[in-house]
C-alpha cells in the first residue's frame, strides 16, 4: 500500500517514471483498469507541465481515506514562473482538443478533486485525488 512517496521531476524520463509509479500505486489500491488509466493520464499531464513549463519539480503521492472509501492523492509542485491567468488556463478552450496548452481542464475531468495554487514567480502546486 503506497503511503507517502515522492519522485523528483527534472527530465522527460521522469515523466515515464512518474507514470509507472502512479500506475503501480493505483494498481495496489485496487482501482479498476479504467480508473487506473484516468489517474495515470492525469498524472502524465500534470507532471509534464511541471517538467516542461515549471522547470522541474516534485511529484508526491499518498493513499487517503474518507468516509470508509480509499483514494489516491497526487501533489505535483514546481518552482517555475507560475501561471499568469489561472482562469484562462482552466478554461476549456478546445473541443478539437489537439492538446495545446497545459491540459489542466482535461486533467481536472479525470479526477474527483482538483486543487491548484499558482503564484507568479513562485511556482505552481496541483493536488488531485481519485477515489475508489
Amino acid at each position, binding site marked *: 500500500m503506497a503511503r507517502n512517496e515522492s519522485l523528483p521531476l527534472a527530465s522527460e524520463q521522469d515523466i515515464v517514471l512518474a507514470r509507472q509509479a502512479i500506475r503501480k500505486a493505483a494498481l495496489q489500491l485496487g482501482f*479498476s*483498469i*479504467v480508473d487506473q488509466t484516468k489517474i495515470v493520464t492525469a498524472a502524465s499531464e500534470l507532471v509534464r507541465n511541471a517538467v516542461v513549463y515549471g522547470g522541474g519539480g516534485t511529484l508526491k503521492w499518498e493513499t487517503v481515506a474518507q468516509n*470508509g472509501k480509499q483514494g489516491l492523492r497526487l501533489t505535483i509542485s514546481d518552482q517555475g514562473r507560475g501561471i499568469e491567468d489561472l482562469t484562462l488556463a482552466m478554461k476549456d478552450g478546445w473541443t478539437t482538443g489537439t492538446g495545446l496548452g497545459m491540459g489542466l481542464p482535461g486533467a481536472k475531468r479525470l479526477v474527483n478533486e482538483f486543487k491548484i495554487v499558482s503564484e507568479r514567480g513562485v511556482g505552481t502546486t496541483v493536488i488531485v485525488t481519485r477515489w475508489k
Partner: protein
Amino acid sequence: MTNAQSRTHTIVKKYGNEMLAGWMNELSGSLRTDRRISQSELSAQTREFLALLETASSSDGIQNLEGAQWTPLRDFLDSISRSRAEQGFSSDETAMFIFSFKKPLFERLRKDFGDNPQLLAEETWNATELLDKLGLHTIKSFQRAREAVINRQQEELLELSTPVVKLWEGILALPMIGTLDSARTQVVMESLLQRIVETGSETAIIDITGVPTVDTLTAQHLLKTVTAIRMMGADCIISGIRPQIAQTIVHLGIDLQGITTKATLADALALALKRMGFAVSRTKG
C-alpha cells in the same frame, strides 16, 4: 484510571474459564436453535475473545479503543462480524455475542467487590463502557461487511441482467433492462467496450427498450460510451428509445451529436447488416 485497567485484566485472567461457562450459557440460550454456527465454533470464539481481552487490558489506554494494543481484538471482532454478515445473521444477533458477556462479568464483579459498593459501581461502569464500545465496534464492522455482501450481490446481478450478445458476425448487442444508475451504466459500458475489442465487432447496438427513464447523468454516460466506441474504430447504434425518453432527451437539451438511433432492435440490426454489405433474401416460399 490505571487501577481500572489492571483490575479488568486481573479479573479476566483469574476468572476467565468460569466466566466462559456463564457466557456460553447465555449465548447457547439465544442461539439454541440456530444451526448456522456450532457450539464448538462459538466456544472457540468466546475463548479467543477472552484471551485477546486479557492481553489488551494488560497495558494502559483502556479508554481509547483505537490504540495499538486493541488492534488484535478489534481485528478479531471484524472477522467475526464478517462471517456473521455472510452467514445472514442480523446486526443484533451479532452484537449479542459481546453483550451477553455482561451477565457473567457483572456476576463476577459482584462476588469480588460486593462489600464495597463504591468500587463495585466503578468497576461495573468501566466494564459496561468497555463492552459497549466493543459492541458498537462490532455493529459498525457488521454493517460494513453487510454492505460489501450487498454490493457483491448487486454486481453479480448486474452481470446477469446485462449480457453482451452476438447478433451476427461483427455485430454485438447490449440489451439494457431496468433503470440505469451511474455506477451500473459505467460497469456495463466498460464490459461492452471490452467485448468489442475481443470480438473485433464493427457494430454495437445498445438497446434501451427495457429502460423506463433516463436522467441527465445516464444520458451523458451513454453518449460518452458511444463516443468511446467510435474512437476505438467501431460503430454504435442506439435502439429502443421510447417516446418518453425521446422527450426527456430533448427537454434536457442533450445533443445526440450525430449518433444513429433506431426505434427497434430489429431496425438497428437491419441497418448494421446493410452497412456491412449484407442483404437478406428469402430462399423458400
